[in-house]
């Protein structure tokens, strides 16, 4: 066996099960997760206007789902996903423009995103869904 292909025992990268993700990594994966959720949410939105165009009965069926426990959960999740993806997306646009790359700045903008999306989500739940 040559030197080049002898097995080397280097430390492996941290496993997700035991590695505590840094706050920045959590926000990063949450951006993708809420993006996927909103893609499904956009289809839901399309179904909403199609039901409204169809007939009062079709719309009543759709509204019946919206007021159910599962429907409330979906709408609440939609609102959170929208506010988080919106504010974190603005953060991404700043990065795309070349600002805020320092670690300190990335953490600060990250906490701003957490605060803004938490407040906006809570407000929308209280006013719109009357959850709390």
């Amino acid at each position, binding site marked *: 066996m040559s030197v080049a292909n002898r097995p080397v025992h280097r430390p492996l990268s941290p496993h997700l099960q035991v590695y505590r993700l840094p706050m920045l990594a959590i926000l990063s994966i949450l951006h*993708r997760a809420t993006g996927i959720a909103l*893609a499904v949410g*956009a289809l839901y939105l399309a179904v909403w206007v199609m039901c*409204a165009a169809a007939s009062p009965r079709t719309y009543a069926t759709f509204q019946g789902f919206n007021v159910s426990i599962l429907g409330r959960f979906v709408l609440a999740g939609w609102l959170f996903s*929208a506010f988080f993806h919106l504010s974190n997306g603005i953060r991404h*646009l700043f990065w795309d423009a070349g600002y805020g790359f320092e670690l300190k700045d990335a953490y600060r903008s990250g906490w701003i995103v957490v605060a803004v999306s938490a407040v906006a989500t809570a407000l*929308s739940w209280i006013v719109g869904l009357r959850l709390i």
Partner: protein
Amino acid sequence: MDDRRTPLARARGLGSAKEGVHHWSAQRLTAIALIPLVVWFAVSLVMLSGADYPVVRAWIGSPLVMVMLILTIGIGLHHAQLGLQVVWEDYTAGAVRLVMIVFTKFLAALFGLGAIVAILRIGLGG
């Protein structure tokens, strides 16, 4: 600089003919457009909660709302399929990747056009 490649080889190494960045810039452009649209829509949705069928139809059918709603759903679905394409590219490969990307784009077009027809039907009657 020690570069023994021909001018053509060097030009080829510089990248493609200005097309590769299109996906990236389209994603950013739709993102910027969606900032005011999503804020408007989220506020409207909260205001509309508890509204009954005639109220919702009258809202969807008013001219300004029709324009804003078509923009929100159209640009939103376009942005969504651009993003989902990247997700498929990251986690799948080969035939699965191709099939899922095509499926995603077709689904976005189908629901987008369906929603636009529905909005126009409510607003213009039919």
